[in-house]
């Protein structure tokens, strides 16, 4: 499987996800500089990594959304290439309108870094085919702006079209207000595009994909994509 990671000024989980991709797929991803509009044409997966692109100044992901490389990402998305946006990458995808809605400041206005529980809401995507329906997994979050908002029609569309991929839940899988770390609409932690080939999520699957780091629940996401694409 051929993958690429887009590197923006201020990306800081680019190396982390590259390590996971190399480990899972056996092939190191292309590290693609934001200023270069021409992505390789044989890509199966493009990852927009976490971090603070352009310092997260103005709005998270707003400046990165205009990077030359994002034009290439958009063209790839149109061709059906899988796109995965993690944390800041999710914000960039929303700002680029490749995904609907927006990510606002966390309800408590504080940065939050900790493990959360997530319920896998759909396995009907190449990203989650390897999980069991309604499986509860544990992944870390690390963000200041993960409070997902969308207007009512968007929310209904996401719901009706089975495009909500992960919801914050408690250890038993219950989706409750107290299990919601950031005030996100309907406990949404990750969503799909209409084409189901673009996934954005706030939690970091690459941070729990190595037993040495305390868990491997994130690994299945990368394995799923690889199995679907090779």
């Amino acid at each position, binding site marked *: 499987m051929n993958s690429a990671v887009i590197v923006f000024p201020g990306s800081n989980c680019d190396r982390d996800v590259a390590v996971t991709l190399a480990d899972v797929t056996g092939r190191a991803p292309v590290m693609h500089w934001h200023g270069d509009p021409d992505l390789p044409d044989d890509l199966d997966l493009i990852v927009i990594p976490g971090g603070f692109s352009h310092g997260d100044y103005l709005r998270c992901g707003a400046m990165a959304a205009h990077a030359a490389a994002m034009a290439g990402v958009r063209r790839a998305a149109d061709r059906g290439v899988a796109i995965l946006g993690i944390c800041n990458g999710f914000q960039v995808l929303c700002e680029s309108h490749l995904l609907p809605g927006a990510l606002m400041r966390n309800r*408590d206005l504080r940065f939050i870094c900790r493990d959360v529980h997530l319920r896998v809401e759909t396995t009907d995507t190449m990203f989650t085919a390897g999980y069991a329906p309604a499986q509860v997994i544990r992944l870390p979050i690390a963000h200041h702006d993960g409070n997902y908002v969308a207007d009512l029609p968007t929310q209904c569309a996401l719901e009706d079209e089975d495009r909500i991929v992960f919801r914050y839940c408690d250890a038993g899988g219950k989706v409750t207000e107290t299990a919601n770390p950031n005030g996100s609409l309907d406990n949404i932690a990750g969503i799909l595009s209409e084409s189901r080939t673009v996934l954005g999520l706030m939690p970091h699957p690459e941070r729990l994909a190595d037993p040495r780091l305390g868990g491997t629940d994130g690994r299945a996401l990368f394995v799923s994509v690889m199995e679907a694409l090779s």
Partner: protein
Amino acid sequence: MKARVHVTLKAGVLDPQGKAIAHALHALGFDGVRDARQGKVIELDLEDDDPEAARARIDDMCRQLLANTVIETYRIEL
């Protein structure tokens, strides 16, 4: 010339920062605060000196970058 862009959340979009401010003001004893909302102001220093042209250009800047029209509205002040 100088210009100011005011970017505010659309009515109906929940504003976590505004809510926190109202809450903190209450905690400080300012009971008379019914609500607070927080927005951004961006002050621009432009080479333009034709207000018409400037306004059109700033409008472009807002739609492309300065505001996220999914959740925000903007107002230009010259």
